[in-house]
């Protein structure tokens, strides 16, 4: 048995994984997508949805080969104590770097849109303290919080899109398919990297009440993600046009700014920012938790909690020095991050998958003798 004693239900896992993929995707990626694929960005969304679904099925089928063990235990079993631990440490460092990126992206949003005078050191520190506290309380706690926050976040997104709908002009989606196919594929690579982040579910499968139910996670998550990001991209293009969207930093936020109903429902973007901050903090909690848990399992500890606070120092420093400015944050996400995430996540899971199928053959051969 692993370290984590808390149990979560399938529905909580579905919401946690959806939130962990969606929280930053919905706010940042439409700008990057329309930059690569113009008004054909909806096609990259569909391609990425299909690829993401395949990645999800693949990752979960790896997890289901060892339903009661977590990533570290079976990679040590498959690849030996040193190489298996090395693969797990790569996984943990990837999620540490990703959490640092998210902390930075959070402070960039707050600094550029709502609180320009606050130094980003303060914002990062507050976020890291919040996240460390959440991880300290454990998986059960933050997945329950997520059960409340994520539907509210979805409701806010639906409301702002419904309110902005009368001003949308779907003629802006024409002409269809005028952009080059490589551009559309580059756009879908950006989205696929977000789907690939979902591989962290490998550490959650043994914590499900019934680990065999992990197969039920993939389809609902894919449907939620595809629905939300498709509406988001189509709505933004038809409201602002592809070129205008590509120039924005946080297009969904700009959309929330345009909403006004009558003359009294205005400035609801603060609602969106509030819900987005809670949702992205839950996303960072999930990744931080996975990273700390992997490190604790690699060193064979009995509990991951002692490592949470020291880890917060590393996370804070990394989020402060890792990226120079807002432009670097955006450029990193559009160029380097997709390749990095897809390579690391699919590389490690593919390696484990191949190793596990070899072992299976050995077992079958042994059984017949």
């Amino acid at each position: 048995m692993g370290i984590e004693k808390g149990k979560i239900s399938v529905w909580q896992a579905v919401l946690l994984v959806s939130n962990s993929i969606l929280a930053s995707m919905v706010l940042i990626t439409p700008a990057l997508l329309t930059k690569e694929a113009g008004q054909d960005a909806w096609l990259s969304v569909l391609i990425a949805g299909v690829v993401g679904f395949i990645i999800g099925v693949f990752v979960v089928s790896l997890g289901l080969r060892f339903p009661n063990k977590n990533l570290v235990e079976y990679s040590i079993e498959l690849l030996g104590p040193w190489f298996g631990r090395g693969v797990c440490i790569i996984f943990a460092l990837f999620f540490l770097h990703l959490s640092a990126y998210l902390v930075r992206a959070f402070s960039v949003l707050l600094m550029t849109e709502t609180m320009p005078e606050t130094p980003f050191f303060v914002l990062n520190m507050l976020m890291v303290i919040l996240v460390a506290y959440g991880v300290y309380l454990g998986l059960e706690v933050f997945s329950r919080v997520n059960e409340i926050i994520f539907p509210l976040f979805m409701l806010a997104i639906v409301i702002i899109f419904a309110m902005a709908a009368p001003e949308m002009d779907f003629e802006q989606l024409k002409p269809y398919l005028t952009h080059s196919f490589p551009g559309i594929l580059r756009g879908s690579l950006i989205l696929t990297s977000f789907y690939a982040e979902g591989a962290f579910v490998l550490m959650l499968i043994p914590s499900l009440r019934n680990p065999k139910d992990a197969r039920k996670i993939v389809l609902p998550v894919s449907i939620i993600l595809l629905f939300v990001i498709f509406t988001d991209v189509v709505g933004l293009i038809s409201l602002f046009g592809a070129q205008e969207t590509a120039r924005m930093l946080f297009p969904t936020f700009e959309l929330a700014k345009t909403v006004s109903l009558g003359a009294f429902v205005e400035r609801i973007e603060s609602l969106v920012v509030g819900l987005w901050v809670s949702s992205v903090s839950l996303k960072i909690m999930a990744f931080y938790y996975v990273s700390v848990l992997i490190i604790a399992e690699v060193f064979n500890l009995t509990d991951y909690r002692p490592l949470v606070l020291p880890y917060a120092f590393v996370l804070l420093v990394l989020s402060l020095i890792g990226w120079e400015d807002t432009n670097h944050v955006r450029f990193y996400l559009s160029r380097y991050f997709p390749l990095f995430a897809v390579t690391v996540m699919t590389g490690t899971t593919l390696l484990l998958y191949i190793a596990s199928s070899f072992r299976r053959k050995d077992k079958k051969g042994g059984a017949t003798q």
Partner: protein
Amino acid sequence: MRIRVKIVFLKILFVLLLGAGVAYHEVPKLLQQQLHRELIVFSCFLLIGVALALAMILNLPIPNPTDAVEYIFSPVVRMLYPG
């Protein structure tokens, strides 16, 4: 000049106090339960974290993982995004 030196000094003091606070929060529990391996790993991580924070305050060069990622993937990025 003198004011800046004082601020750096205060920042260092702040980081050291935070580190001591974290140690004070965790170490007695670990000692009580005789978890020596946990204690070693915890101390290593705390030392790394505090050292990184001090290096950041004193403007010392810190190896940046983002640079490493960008260096590794730059050939592929140049191939994928011409111009």
